[in-house]
């Protein structure tokens, strides 16, 4: 019997604290616990969706994975092309730079993430140049190929981004991310700035590219419908911690954490005949600079009991490959969506 293949990415105990500085001497008055002990893995060719509300730490997690910002603690293991596993935190800057070609990012806002003074050829060709493709001719060929792949006409490569619509700009951003044949692509809210009628085009493109190029996605989003469409597994974050992680259909059909259930019931469905029994949460998201004791969700949780107020729930595997951080996960019967 062969062992399960090593995951492409494994994150263990990731933590990122941002200092809060106060006063003339800029003394550290406390920390925003943006990401507070997050662990997960992603297999090759898989999409892990990372959902949560604003300020839950999903974007910070994604950026730490790429070491676009330095994590405070934790380990990030990535399996590189030759099969060996490296820990990103141990790498020297030059080694990290070489590894960057395997990990790329797609950003939320296609209007601010593309330099308006660069043509498509420069934008998409820049990573090629940085990583040593010196011949302009070669770059042009590769850029033409990439533009075709994302559904843009290669003739457009001398134009500037302002000539393109939001959806087309997002395609340019995707072409740029794919230029170096990455294996891991981190997409941070890639469709949330787009018109409704264009979102589906980009989601379908991401699905097709994944199948063709055997990409692995970490897909960060706040929209649970979008995440369901693209993810194999989904992780839910709340105030810097992961509260649940499971296969997509299982998480939506049978959530085990009250916060996941609340998110699912809050998503307004485009069907007036579905008047779901809303599980309406009281209050607002906790402040990550001064989170409550115990389970961070307890002040809003309709099922909270004494232990929730004092003890941090353990991250437990409640059924195979289904993880949850809730004291009462075993006894609660929560409603999902079909």
């Amino acid at each position, binding site marked *: 019997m062969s062992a399960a293949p090593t995951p492409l990415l494994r994150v263990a105990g990731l933590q990122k604290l941002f200092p809060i500085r106060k006063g003339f001497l800029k003394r550290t008055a406390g920390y925003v616990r943006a990401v507070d002990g997050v662990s997960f893995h992603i297999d090759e060719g898989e999409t892990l969706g990372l959902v949560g*509300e*604003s300020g839950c730490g999903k974007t910070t997690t994604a950026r730490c994975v790429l070491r676009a910002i330095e994590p405070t603690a934790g380990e990030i293991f990535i399996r590189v092309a030759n099969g060996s596993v490296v820990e990103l935190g141990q790498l020297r800057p030059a080694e990290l730079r070489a590894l960057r070609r395997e990990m790329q990012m797609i950003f939320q806002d296609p209007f601010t993430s593309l330099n308006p003074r660069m043509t498509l050829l420069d934008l998409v060709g820049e990573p090629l140049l940085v990583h040593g493709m010196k011949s302009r001719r070669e770059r042009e060929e590769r850029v033409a190929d990439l533009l075709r792949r994302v559904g843009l006409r290669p003739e457009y490569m001398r134009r500037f981004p302002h000539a393109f*619509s*939001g*959806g*087309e700009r997002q395609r340019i951003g995707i072409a740029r991310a794919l230029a170096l044949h990455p294996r891991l692509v981190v997409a941070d809210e890639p469709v949330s700035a787009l*018109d*409704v*009628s*264009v*979102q*589906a*085009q980009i*989601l*379908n493109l991401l*699905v097709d590219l994944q199948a063709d190029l055997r990409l692995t996605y970490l897909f960060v989003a*706040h*929209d*649970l*419908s*979008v995440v*369901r*469409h693209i993810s194999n597994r989904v992780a839910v974050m709340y105030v810097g911690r992961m509260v649940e992680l499971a296969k*997509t*259909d299982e998480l*939506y059909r049978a959530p085990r954490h009250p916060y996941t259930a*609340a*998110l*699912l019931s*809050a*998503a*307004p*469905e*485009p*069907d*007036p*005949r*579905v*008047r779901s029994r*809303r599980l*309406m*949460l009281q209050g*607002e*998201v906790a402040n990550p600079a001064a989170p409550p004791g115990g389970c961070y969700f307890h002040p809003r949780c309709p099922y909270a009991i004494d232990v929730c107020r004092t003890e941090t729930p353990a991250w437990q595997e409640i059924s195979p490959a289904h993880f949850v951080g809730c004291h009462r996960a075993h006894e609660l019967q929560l409603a999902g*969506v*079909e």
Partner: protein
Amino acid sequence: MTREPLLSVRNLKTYFIQDEGLVKAVDGVSFDVAEGVTLGIVGESGCGKSVTARSILRIVDRPGRIVEGEIHFRRPSANGGPGRTVDLATLEPNGAEMRAIRGAEIALIFQEPMSSFSPVHTIGSQIVEAIRLHQPGGRREARDKTIELLRRVGVSSPEERVDQLSNQLSGGMRQRAMIAMALSCHPTLLIADEPTTALDVTTQTQILELMRQLQQEDGMAIMLITHDLGVIATMATDVAVMYLGRVVEQAPVDAIFHAPLHPYTRALLRSIPRIRSRARLVPIAGAVPHPYDRPTGCPFHPRCAEFKAGTCDRQEPRLTRIGDHHTVSCFLYE
């Protein structure tokens, strides 16, 4: 007996005349809002939904201006009987009558609660100002009213919040305060322009529920403008679908979602991801055209699956009535 609608917009055209060209932001829009119901206006960026709202309130920024059309609004009367109807399009934007209507009889809440309050005045002083502008009574009385309003919209410890600045409130609390200000003069029509778009989904649920509850208590009509079909399905009684400055279809909410007629409405419903399904999405081809190069004929024809050459690209479809409450603007139904 059906009373005449509270608001009746007829063939409204608001154009922006610029050096780069003419932008027909609103190009012949007609719809009615009945008393006490919610009309949802749904559309993508550039469809003219916000300019329509601003036209009704007569706060269109230069160089935009209403070039044609009527906006009939029935003003409330003192004794509760049928009020007098005025055409807002003919009023002076800063004249006495328009100022008496705006903010009092027709109130507006915006998408961005952060930028709709002044950052240097307390929440309370801004609501007090709105109250004193339209209602008799002293400062003390207006302040008590403000605290009561804040309590009513679910702002916690309103006695303290009333003296806070808007940046001391969370997004959800700011939107509640915004709603309190909008309701301060008992409007008969509340225009809500993307009221929950900047909010998280659990906060959105709270705000939508609050709006529904306040509508039941006060009986005001709501014109809810959004791009989110989920919000429309939860809130609206009737829906108008807009595309590039036109209403392409209007019907009761159930018909829009379960018997849509216009190819744009049908395509939009097929293209949105749904929380209950993982089926591959059916996208709409192309993108919303730039307002400077608006297609001829039916504005949707370059993206339409049922495009008929020679008709759709040459002539403009008329709004056609199908059944009692359903209108559509498409050659398939003419």
